[in-house]
């Protein structure tokens, strides 16, 4: 029995390592890992220097690890094992609850005074941008939208971070600084409809709001702008917009991190206005299709948040050819995408830039060039005072 068991152990061991080698070599070398949403490591370049200092083999190991045999299948198995067998509270940086997938947040420690100073300094920069816009007669608004963790703070287990304290503090500081510098700040988290209807308006598998959530937020923003300017910006009333549910499964950022292995499923919606508004669209200077929704080819494929506006783009220009309406520039992170699908309703020309990708000029220069009537920045609570990307209106643009 000892000999037989020993022989079988050897066979198993050798089979595993030799088949691992063969499969790794033979495996088609993919460039991108869809579920991890990242580029896989490329084969390192040989150089005498890299071999001499050992970096060549370090890089080779990273490359092989990214392309190792059965990697994808095993990662899925590991996710399943952790989620359903061991039932860890956090799997692949996602907090798995019975009815929602939440983003794992690092424990947050902050110094109240430092945060106040940081917020003050950030808002002070915004006031310069606002002065620039108001200098030619435009209107500037900085909008904070609650992301999933802020909307579902109470869904976090007590032993995990939900950043509630930080969120309250930064919003209070932001409001105070906005008052001090006269910056027009709209906090969409104050929108009762949005917060009370969170099961419809916020995603359960992603950090973003749903299209309906974007719609409610948009109405709130426009109402506030109109109240401030006395203007009459219009948005589609509830009976002038129809939401249509897609049949595709929505793969949000959290469900994607779990390789789609989750019992919590969700769908996405598109919207249609009762008034037909034709428009032209340009992306990064090139003419594109006149559409704001990009559904998958068929209903069996997963749909992602890039359904809206085709995801994050450096620059998009939508012209509705209604010169009686004002122009708008919307900039910000991915929270702008769903909102932009609706926002062109209110404007003649809607420009949208994402400073994480746009690198032709600074935001300030862009505004100087196009002088839009309205400049609206949309940022979620997590990015509210972040100075990189869309938080750097005067700086060199890079991500």
């Amino acid at each position, binding site marked *: *029995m*000892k*000999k*037989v*068991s*020993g*022989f*079988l*152990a*050897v066979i*198993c*061991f*050798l089979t*595993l*390592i*030799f088949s*691992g*080698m063969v499969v*790794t070599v033979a495996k088609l070398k993919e460039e991108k890992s869809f579920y991890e949403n990242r580029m896989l490591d490329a084969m390192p370049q040989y150089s005498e220097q890299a*071999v*001499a*200092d*050992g970096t060549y*083999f370090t890089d*080779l*190991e*990273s490359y*092989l*690890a990214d392309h*190792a*045999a*059965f*990697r994808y299948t*095993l*990662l899925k*198995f*590991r996710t399943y094992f952790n989620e359903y067998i*061991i039932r*860890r*509270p*956090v799997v692949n940086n996602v907090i798995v609850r019975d009815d929602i997938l939440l983003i794992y947040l690092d*424990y947050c*420690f902050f110094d109240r005074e430092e945060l106040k100073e940081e917020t003050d300094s950030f808002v002070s920069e915004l006031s310069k941008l606002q002065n620039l816009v108001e200098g030619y007669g435009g209107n500037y608004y900085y909008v904070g939208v609650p992301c999933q963790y802020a909307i579902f703070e109470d869904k976090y*287990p*007590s*032993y*995990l971070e939900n950043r509630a304290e930080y969120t309250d503090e930064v919003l209070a500081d932001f409001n105070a600084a906005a008052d001090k510098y006269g910056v027009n700040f709209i906090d969409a988290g104050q929108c009762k409809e949005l917060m009370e209807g969170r099961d419809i308006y916020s995603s359960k598998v992603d950090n973003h709001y749903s299209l309906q959530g974007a719609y409610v937020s948009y109405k709130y923003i426009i109402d506030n702008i109109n109240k401030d300017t006395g203007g009459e910006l219009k948005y589609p009333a509830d009976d002038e917009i129809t939401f249509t549910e897609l049949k595709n499964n929505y793969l949000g950022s959290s469900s994607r991190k779990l390789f789609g292995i989750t019992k919590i499923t969700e769908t996405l919606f598109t919207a249609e206005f009762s008034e037909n508004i034709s428009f032209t669209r340009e992306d990064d200077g090139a003419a594109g299709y006149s559409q704001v929704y990009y559904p998958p080819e068929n209903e069996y494929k997963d749909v992602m948040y890039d359904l809206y506006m085709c995801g994050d783009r450096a620059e998009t220009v939508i012209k509705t050819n209604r010169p009686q309406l004002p122009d708008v520039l919307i900039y910000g992170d991915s929270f702008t995408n769903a909102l932009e699908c609706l926002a062109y309703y209110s404007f003649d020309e809607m420009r949208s830039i994402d400073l994480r990708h746009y690198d032709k000029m600074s935001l300030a220069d862009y505004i100087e060039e196009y002088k839009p009537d309205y400049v609206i920045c949309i940022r979620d609570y997590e990015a509210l005072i972040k100075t990189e990307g869309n938080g750097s209106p005067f700086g060199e643009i890079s991500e």
Partner: protein
Amino acid sequence: MLFSSVSFLLFFLPSLLAVYFCVPRRFRTLRNLVLLIFSLFFYGCGGVRFLLLMLASIMINYIGGMLASLKNKRGAKWGMIGAVICNLLLLGYFKYTGFFTQTLHSFIPSVEVVNVVLPIGISFYTFQGLAYVVDVYRGDTRVQKNPLWVALYISLFPQLIAGPIVRYQTIADEIKGRRENMEDFSAGCVRFMIGFGKKMLLANAAGRLADIAFGFPSEHMSVSFAWMGALAYTAQIYFDFSAYSDMAIGMGRMFGFHFLENFNYPYISKSVTEFWRRWHISLSSWFRDYVYIPLGGNRCSVPRHMLNIMIVWFLTGMWHGASWNFIIWGLYFGIILLIEKYLLAGVLDRIPSIIRHIYTMVLVVISWVIFRSEDLSAVWTYLGAMFGIGAEGFWSKQTVYYFIQFYPEWILFFICSTPVAMVVGKYLTTKKNLFSGFVLNFVPKIFAVAVFILGYIELVNGSFNPFIYFRF
């Protein structure tokens, strides 16, 4: 190259096995050459310039060994001393120059700090080389006249960079006359697979926890969280290092070598003295045979004996790293061992074993905090937090989370630190029936294959894969 890497597991090891076992057994020299070439390649992957340094070390020890075997006693002595000095100079330069210049710089700012990159495994192969030359000089082993076999002894890849520290006499006969066989190969595979699983599933998880705790803002650390981090590091260092030893011993057996055990369930010890008989056995016995006994051991006056122990533990600390932490860590153990020897002798034996065990583990856990912390101020801050000084309360949500999140690992840390499997095995051995025979023969192998597969899943899952003992 790490044992727990794709390049090693799926490329280096299969290639070596294929080439090695394609050579018929009767061509022993050729098989040894294959092993040597692969071992040099293995080390060269960490940087060719370090390979040149190791070759220099091999040369020194080969010549040192030849001189130490001279019939002329005076010549042999000087040959041995020369080799020892050269070895220590190499180790001293590459490992301690930065530390000494940094220390001098803090007293004399005009002294420039020199940073020297530490070659992987230099502490291990230098000690092996030293042991070889001294053993030849003492007549404990025969000199190896073929430089290739000295090179093979020093560079043999399983134990090259993280031990165990193998004595030449342990494998001298096996270099020329070993007989690889299925029984050894099978036992080696099983040992390797268990070591690999231990590293990937336990050591790395413990490492993640320890890194989080030791990187946590000290002003926000609760007492329970500080202890959790210290326990996690206690688990990490054991599972990490013993896993490496398992893999080294296992691979040695695949190729017909029988290395001595390096660990014997150290965390079940009931005194610190016992702990050091069970922990890193190859290093403890090296210091015993090449430093402690030559200094006079315990066959001398009490003050001299105490001095000998403190010297050995000062050097043990220094061997582990060029920093004050390690020196204090070594002296800490020296003092405890002296206390156990001279003050607690007889007292400990009368205390209930559970208390002795707790006493030992508390002291060991504290020692790992000294070992793990970045610098001395971090040591005091962390130890302070563990005992409520500067800590943010006793309990915290972080403690709860990391216990819940890693609950399977915590259970396994406990089980795998104890010889449960061995006890069960012994029990089954007494039951001489078919079932116990089946369990004894098949379960360990099935378990080994399972943890190997799970370990491979962890390997492809992440890049968190450092071996602690590579820095020594």
